[in-house]
């Protein structure tokens, strides 16, 4: 919520029955745009938190034998820095963009399951709070973000229980989100939008949803096994009884490597939208970019053991995983070449979103190339678990994923708020961040090669690590400084920013065809799609030389419509369910004392689920009756007419909180007939 501005809050339609203001309306919202904003705001808050953790780490490492932190504190901070940035920042930021944009880009009025969507957010928020609250309850987890057994199963203190349960909770949020996005993309695209007319961003979200579906259960199993070893005396990872710690590594990385693509693919989708708009050319080789994304995902399940090249797999397995890892560079390269092809011969406008996108290509390429050196197993035995690897994945996840996310924020902010973010501040942000980023992480390549191991709280003087560590620390603080213009632009300057029209950048995709900020119901009329980048092709044709020619100009669309459009009812059951879950988690961690809390949590959880199942979307919250319509109806025909029919039937009987997405007309009819009561 941190990024909300008054403009964003102002989504009221005149005469609408939606309660728009106030905390309660946010707590009970099922609107994908609001959920997206809450995801984004929460994740940015955690980004600052994870960044502060990183600054402490860099302070400690600025000089040899650092004394800023104890080893114990250092171990907690690097564990939480990794866990926070992966699970509480980049994954939810991708979910934020997916939530806000998927329905807008495919021409839908919401995601498939709006209440489940709200539940995902609340479970994520509470899971993040749960994980972070460990700081006050005995210390942050201290076994690394990867939680290798048997280190994670041995320690008597509850820190790693917080870690394992926290990740299980966040996994529920991600899994529900993945089911939701998969269903939304498969079933709710506007008429005419075949799979190969979807924006690349939507494609990448689909690929990510699949990766989540098939990788999350594997880490879930690993976490359960750790948790059971810790709390119920099982012996999964106890070598004395014949348990094998390497099993944990296989399970973790069978999730962990697809996870890398889960983190990077959404940003690849973002820059695949930004580059064409600011080059005024279509994406070069659309199908190849899409196929490359899918290929990366598939191959991503066959490379996990390259995280374990030093664990003693034997030369045959090492060779096999070396080859698959090298091979995955091919589709990655295809994407990079196509992005460059997109800019080639264009009319490039170096606005902030474009700068971050070009920065993405440049920085991600460095991370990709150092990744190839990891595929060379013998070289990897020198590099793994050193700062060379730290440098590598920060080039991928910061220079890559985060740069893409910033590109997305600057690109879609006018759509979200109706105002541009300041270009001046944006450019300061970009150049300072690029400088700080390279100052921080480029030296770490050399630090690693010169023998600096990861996760070490102190390093000795006189072995050639002093200077570069100091440079790296200065870089980290430069990154911190670079966040200031961004935060200023978001919180202060955005209120007086330049007003943005609906089509803020002369865009290509459907979200630019509707007002900025978008109507609560997204589309007055569900669009019919005929081409990739349909909105662009409505505006532009091509002359005989193949140059774009303006053929149509649209009037500024209104945010409001006289039609009554049914939207889903707000609901407090999602947050109730999420709260029950996290209470159970606290109860479990503090068992046996916590058992009453566990029971209370279970009751709240079941109460929430029960209420959810009974809730009627056509009546005020709390009324009995059946399950809410996650329903939506075929949109091919006569939306307006149906909406009109709804309006006559519903407005009178509904109170403020009653809406239903997707015209809801069918449910009403069905309810009245009673024919579906079985």
């Amino acid at each position, binding site marked *: 919520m941190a990024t909300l501005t008054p403009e964003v809050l102002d989504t009221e339609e005149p005469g609408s029955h939606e309660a728009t203001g106030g905390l309660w309306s946010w707590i009970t919202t099922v609107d994908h745009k609001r959920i997206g904003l809450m995801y984004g705001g929460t994740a940015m808050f955690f980004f600052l938190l994870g960044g502060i953790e990183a600054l402490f780490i860099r302070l400690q490492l600025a000089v040899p034998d650092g004394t800023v932190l104890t080893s114990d504190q250092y171990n907690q901070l690097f564990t939480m820095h990794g866990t926070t940035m992966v699970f509480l920042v980049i994954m939810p930021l991708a979910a934020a963009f997916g939530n806000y944009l998927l329905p807008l880009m495919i021409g839908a009025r919401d995601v498939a399951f709006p209440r489940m969507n709200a539940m995902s957010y609340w479970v994520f928020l509470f899971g993040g709070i749960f994980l972070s609250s460990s700081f006050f309850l005995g210390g942050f987890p201290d*076994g690394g973000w990867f939680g290798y057994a048997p280190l994670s199963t041995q320690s008597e203190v509850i820190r790693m229980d917080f870690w394992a349960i926290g990740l299980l909770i966040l996994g529920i949020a991600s899994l529900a989100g993945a089911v939701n996005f998969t269903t939304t993309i498969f079933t709710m695209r506007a008429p005419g939008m075949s799979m190969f007319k979807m924006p690349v961003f939507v494609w990448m979200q689909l690929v990510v949803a699949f990766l989540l579906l098939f990788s999350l259960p594997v880490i879930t199993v690993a976490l359960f096994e750790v948790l059971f070893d810790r709390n119920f005396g099982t012996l999964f990872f106890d070598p004395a009884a014949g348990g094998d710690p390497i099993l944990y590594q296989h399970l973790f990385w069978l999730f962990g490597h697809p996870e890398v693509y889960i983190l990077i693919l959404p940003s690849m989708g973002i820059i695949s939208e930004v580059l064409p708009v600011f080059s005024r050319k279509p994406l070069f080789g659309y199908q190849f970019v899409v196929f490359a994304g899918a290929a990366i995902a598939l191959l991503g399940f066959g490379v996990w053991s390259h995280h374990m090249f030093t664990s003693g797999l034997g*030369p045959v397995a090492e060779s096999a995983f070396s080859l698959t890892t090298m091979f995955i*560079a091919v589709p990655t390269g295809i994407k990079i070449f196509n992005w460059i092809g997109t800019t080639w011969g264009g009319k490039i406008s170096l606005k902030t979103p474009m700068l971050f996108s070009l920065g993405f290509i440049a920085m991600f390429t460095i991370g990709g190339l150092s990744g190839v050196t990891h595929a*060379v197993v013998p070289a990897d035995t020198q590099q793994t678990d050193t700062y060379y690897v730290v440098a590598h994945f920060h080039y991928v996840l910061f220079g890559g994923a985060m740069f893409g996310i910033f590109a997305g924020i600057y690109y879609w902010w006018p759509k979200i708020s109706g105002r541009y973010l300041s270009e001046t501040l944006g450019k300061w942000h970009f150049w300072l961040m690029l400088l700080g980023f390279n100052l921080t992480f480029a030296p770490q390549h050399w630090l690693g090669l010169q023998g600096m191991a990861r996760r070490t709280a102190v390093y000795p003087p006189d072995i050639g690590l002093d200077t*570069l560590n100091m440079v790296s620390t200065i870089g980290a603080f430069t990154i911190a400084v670079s966040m200031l213009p961004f935060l200023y632009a978001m919180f202060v300057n955005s209120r007086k920013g330049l007003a943005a029209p609906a089509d803020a950048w002369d865009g290509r995709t459907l979200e630019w065809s509707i007002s900025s900020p978008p109507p609560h119901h997204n589309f007055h009329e569900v669009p019919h799609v005929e081409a990739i980048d349909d909105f662009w092709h409505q505006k532009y044709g*091509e002359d005989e030389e193949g140059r774009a020619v303006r053929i149509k100009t649209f009037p500024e669309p209104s945010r409001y419509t006289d039609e009554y459009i049914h939207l889903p009812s707000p609901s407090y059951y999602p947050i109730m369910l999420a709260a029950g879950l996290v209470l159970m988690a606290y109860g479990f961690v503090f068992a046996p004392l916590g058992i009453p809390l566990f029971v209370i949590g279970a009751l709240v959880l079941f109460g929430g689920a029960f209420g959810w199942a009974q809730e009627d979307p056509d009546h005020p919250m709390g009324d009995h009756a059946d399950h809410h319509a996650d329903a939506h109806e075929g949109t091919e025909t006569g939306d307006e007419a149906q909406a009109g029919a709804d309006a006559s039937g519903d407005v009178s009987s509904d109170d403020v909180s009653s809406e239903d997405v997707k015209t809801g007309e069918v449910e009403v009819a069905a309810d009245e007939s009673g024919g579906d009561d079985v």
Partner: protein
Amino acid sequence: MRLAPLGLLVVLLLSSCSDNLPRSTLNPVGENAQTIDDLFRLTLAIAAVFFVGVNGAVVYAAIRYRARKNDDTEPKQIHGNDTLEITWTVIPALILATIAVPTVRTIFELAEEPPNALQVEVIGHQWWWEYRYPELGVVTANELWIPTDQPVFLSMTTDDEDVIHSFWIPNLNGKRDVVPGRVNTLTVSAPEPGVYLGQCAEFCGLSHSQMRMTVHAAEPADFDAWVDQQLAPGDVDENSAGWGLFLDKGCSACHAIGGTTAEGGGLNPGPDLTHIGSRSTFAGASFELTTENLKAWLRNPSDLKPMRPDSNRGMPNLGLNEDEIDTLVAFLQDLK
């Protein structure tokens, strides 16, 4: 501006080459480290070509195709080019194949056990290293001695109650994890005499950063002399105050001294101290073995290197007074 930090780094890299880099992978001494370094430099050279090509193209495009003022023409709408797509799929694949061949060959080469290797068993403990030379009967800690004329084959594991460590001497070879319940192997060799530094490379808990080690490569004659010295029993006067304290304060419960009743071991084994006075470092090769350092250590070990003696991990605070500390330190330093 974009390339400025990179330029700066190249300068730093070049300048650092002249520094003393006893833990650097870029300074290979061992045969395997040399093989790895050659392969890495080949890969790096190819990667550098792509780096220059891709990032050069990005910068070039951003400048060359930047929209100019007063130019309202639209660009050609190019949707793709299949020939180009095939080209930039096949060529990188071929280049990767040229890296893959030597990679696979080297993987198998490095996995082989050299003939006539000196056998050493490495046991990782939280947070120090134990070395056993089964053919020679030597047991020592943290400082691994090897001859310059013979490769050394390490068979590495940990106690069942311990965690995963990783043995890494960057000058001599890549790292290899040391996993409870498994035996992993690694070959190290150092044709030149010298001291090479290492660091546990798998996060192993509280004092992971101070789980270091050194390799002392010695000329064959020096190595043999070292072995002879190690085989001698501990030089202990059983009537001395130091020995009395060693027994009274419970040191012998964890630490062994060869040729005495102190057999060490137990739930929380500590390094063999038979010849501690002849070592140059202690506590996971983290501190120079000086009188002052030893005294500070005995005052409270966790002040120097945090440990969890309550969980049988590391050395407890023995609550010694200064006289006792002086006596014990003198006793230990006499164990040459």
